């Protein structure tokens, strides 16, 4: 079996056996959706852009919660040393962690996104294929950034507290673009209106995957 799939399989099996990460992510995302709904005046509807903001606040907060998990599992019993002793390259390790994190975030989105439409109105539900594409691009970018930072914060004593402080400033531009684009989808604007932003999102995911591959080795070694 390929090393990459071996590592991904190990992480996902851990999650399937005891879905700690996904359950807490979905729970937290749901909680945020309800909490943010309180800000709405009774009977009022959110503008499409604001609704998009609510959705991505919920998803990204849930994502941060899950991102710390796959790396902190390697910290117990210093399993990370076992990986570093083996012939696995840091690049393969990064790619595998990225894939596992992507899968975790995507799994949480499968619940958070439908819950959003239930709570905030299904009139926003337009162009599902395009929306799925936007979600995949944004998730890729968040997972790439988060994977590198979770490896980094796992080496500090304040890992859980530090991760969001490093993660959010860096993904802020990606989230800003994602919210704007999602808002345009909710509004029913044509694809041509925002397709160039999708390229920027794709470029972000690619650049940060590349940077993570290069920087994973120094982050993990002393």
């Amino acid at each position, binding site marked *: 079996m390929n090393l990459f799939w071996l590592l991904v399989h190990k992480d996902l099996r851990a999650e399937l056996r005891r879905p700690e990460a996904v359950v807490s992510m979905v729970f937290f995302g749901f909680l945020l959706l309800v909490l943010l709904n309180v800000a709405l005046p009774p009977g009022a509807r959110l503008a499409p852009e604001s609704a998009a903001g609510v959705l991505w606040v919920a998803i990204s907060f849930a994502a941060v919660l899950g991102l710390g998990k796959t790396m902190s*599992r390697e910290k117990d019993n210093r399993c990370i040393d076992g990986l*570093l002793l083996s012939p696995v390259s840091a690049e393969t390790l990064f790619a595998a962690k990225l894939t596992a994190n992507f899968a975790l975030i995507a799994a949480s989105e499968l619940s958070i996104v439908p819950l959003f439409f239930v709570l905030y109105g299904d009139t926003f539900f337009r162009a599902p294929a395009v929306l799925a594409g936007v979600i995949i691009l944004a998730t890729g970018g968040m997972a790439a950034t988060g994977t590198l930072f979770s490896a980094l914060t796992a080496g500090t004593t304040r890992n859980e507290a530090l991760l969001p402080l490093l993660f959010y400033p860096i993904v802020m531009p990606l989230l800003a673009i994602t919210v704007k684009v999602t808002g345009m989808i909710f509004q029913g604007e044509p694809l041509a209106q925002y397709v160039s932003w999708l390229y920027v999102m794709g470029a972000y995911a690619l650049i940060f995957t590349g940077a993570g591959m290069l920087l994973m080795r120094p982050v993990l070694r002393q």
Partner: protein
Amino acid sequence: MAIGRQASFSGAPEAGFLAVREVCKEYEGRRILRQVSLSLAAGDFLVLFGPNGAGKSTLLGIISTLISPSSGRVEVGGRDVSQDPERYKRRLGMISHHCLLYDHMTALENLLFYGGLYGVADRRQRAEELLRAVGLHRRRHSPVAGFSRGMRQRLSIARALINDPDLLLLDEPFSGLDQHAAVGLQEQLANLHGRRRTLIMVTHQIERGLALATRVAILAAGRLVFYAARPQVTAADFKNLYQELVGAPPGASGAEKR
């Protein structure tokens, strides 16, 4: 004192399988290793003694490539291991202070996972074999989370042997083992040595160490203060020598745990 030949501290260069060349390590403002050089022939069994904080674990870490030296290098077969680390690591096994096992996976799953990492051909059979050898075959389907320290240590030994390494590094492998398991490990190590594997072991246990060693080294305050082919002496004589070189009897600093 009738200690074999007191070989030069830079090690005997004719040996040829593994060479540590003038390795220094500074980390977080401390000089942990200073100019450590030694070399081993294939099939050697080096036992490394020294007080706590002498840099023994760091030296093993550098040989394993887990830690990169500040200067100097480690060579295997005349080639710097940092040139092609993946190839080197394929032939390496290590037992460290930590068990490096996944708590949520069973004993067998852990071994299968590590077997996969090393691309072991028939990893299922190899894993079962090793589980039998360390006496954990009956518990192979139990998650590691419920294992005692001794069981973890035994599984850790099996883990380190999964790829049938040419070079095995052992950091205090006897810790946490009961008498029975310790004897079992000692036999296993002697067996590996008999099959011309190269071993480097750090231990506080002078008798056990001397019984297995073909070479002995003492590390104190980051320096190799003694390095020689196995002295043909009793443990008592060796302890005297140790005390002379280190300034404290073996195990005296063992009380101050890290």
